[in-house]
């Protein structure tokens, strides 16, 4: 009988903790919400889909660039990554991945404009008419101009 009384007491305590106040909010938002998404997630087990929803804009940016390089069979590209300042100035919310993360996402090399190897970059991404454009860098003058653009936003 005492076991049952304690069981009822434990139920009430846990119910109170898991449904009211701070812990109730946490339990609902961080734990139970997982199960709300559960059925849709089990329907979408595709690895690249899971990567895309987790890594968001930076990943889409990187895979877009990869697709261009692969489709156009461009060998050994070195991408000059646009700076955060440049992205903000052009009203883009996408956070461009840093070179090591870009390499992890795509397997392609990239550099930031601050890096000494930026002078060797032969491609970059610019925003034109609110769209990304992958642009080849053909001359040192072009490269310096783009570096200047990324520097000042």
């Amino acid at each position, binding site marked *: 009988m005492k*076991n049952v009384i304690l*069981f009822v*007491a434990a139920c009430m305590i*846990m119910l109170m903790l898991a449904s009211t106040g701070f*812990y109730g909010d946490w*339990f609902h938002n961080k734990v139970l919400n997982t199960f709300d998404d559960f059925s849709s997630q089990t329907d979408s087990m595709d690895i690249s889909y899971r990567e895309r929803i987790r*890594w968001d804009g930076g990943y889409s940016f990187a895979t877009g660039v990869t697709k261009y390089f692969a489709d156009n069979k461009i060998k050994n590209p070195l991408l000059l990554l646009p700076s955060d300042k440049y992205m903000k100035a052009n009203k883009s919310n996408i956070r461009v991945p840093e070179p*090591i993360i870009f*390499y992890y996402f795509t397997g392609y090399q990239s550099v930031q404009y601050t890096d000494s190897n930026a002078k060797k970059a032969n491609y970059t991404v610019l925003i034109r008419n609110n769209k990304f454009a992958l642009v080849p860098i053909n001359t040192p003058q072009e490269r310096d101009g783009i570096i200047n653009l990324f520097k000042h936003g």
Partner: protein
Amino acid sequence: MNTIGLLFLLVTHFLCGWGLLQLFNIKMKPTFMVSLSMIVGVVLFSFLPLLLQFFYIRITTTSVLFAILAATIILNIKTIINFKSLKKPEKFEWPHLYEYPFLIILLIIIVASVWRCFYFPPYARDMLSGPEALAEFTVREHTLLNSIFSVDLESTNNHLKTPYVADLQIIYKLFVYQFGQLWLSVLFVSFIVWVYALLKEKLHPIIAGIAVFCFIAMPDVYAYTYIILFDYSNMIFYFAGFYFFILYADSKQINQFLFSCLLFGFATFIRPETLVLLGMTIPLVVYTFWKEHLPVKKIIFRSAIFLLIPFFFYFIWMDIFLKYYMPVPFSVNDQINKNLFDFSVFFTRFGDLNSKLMFGKVSSLIYGYFMDIFVFLLAVDLIIFRRVNKEGRILLYGIVVVYIGLPFLGYLIPWVDFWDTTKRGIYKMFPLMLLYMRDSPMLQRISDGIKSWEFAKAKPVPAVAATKAGKTGQTATQTKNRPNNPGNNGKANQKKKK
């Protein structure tokens, strides 16, 4: 997902951990042994790819498989030799009925964490720009010294962090699936089982359940049960080191002291700056030996061991692998504060730790009310009960080391920033606070109150009343409420009454 690969890893984690516990002659209850074996088994595996790389052996599924099998056999030689003398495991005790509401909630929380850990890829920037990238290209190129070092690494130093996460990621990517990560769930589940069992040793299961719930429901800490990083693991091993030191302080068995040193070594392997905190623990170690009336030479020798074992783990990464294997330069001296005479950084950091992280506006959003509960309990214990037992005192020392040590690390090493490294460094306090709760006189009194009510023997039925009922002569020894299944608590309670 390769389920057989996962099962293979789970079994070998357990066997390796079990073997190591046997080598140190650690004997505990089955729940403790199983959960601790899993925890230790995970960290042991994190050395294997590094070991292969030391000998320039290609890191492939086959080589890692052989490394795992070799480690399992080597660590279990003692178990195999003594196989016949192994005791039968104790009978498993099912939880009381009233533990189930808590266990169900706990299970829901754990399942949510494990699912997220499984479903989503590694997320933290510190992982993607370091250990995760290193692991991914190791799997592709079969060496830790792979093409990520050809990339512009100016924006990060995460590739230089210890290989604990990268190595486990490599193993889980090779044997389970490409996101790895599930080793974190193994650690998390084993750890929660262990701490719950630890609390139940001294507290009523309902009190233990509430305490563990408050511990697990710290939002920031919970997030790192499914987002791989170093801090949750570091917290576990820092705690485990203190736990075995407490056992040593109680039993004076040297094997427990050595095992404690090893666990602190694992904590250092995961986060090398733990060594500084261990340096700050030396006064406690020396004091414990001094109270034991050990000769001075022995005190010095054992204190040196306490630091040398963790230092060994620091040394193999920082002074051997980084220096002689890594293709990029790294110097510890460059990481140290150049203006050591300016102590203002320490005091500013210490102030911020209190006013912003621990007791600030956002602290409940980060850590819930766990810290407030602990401070309240401690205040009641000190003001009303005016006593803290030896275990509690050691735990409080460990908490103070983190409390002072983190601002000190911020002063010593400028890259130890506030909102990331310090915020997560605090985690190390929490399991110590949780374990303190089982020593809290206030909680013990509440616990004892529930237990004595639960297992109370009935008062003798008065003779008059019995006569009225027509049952004379059988009243003296009759009990009103006999516990259905007193279990350990009942036994403990009955012993106490004797």
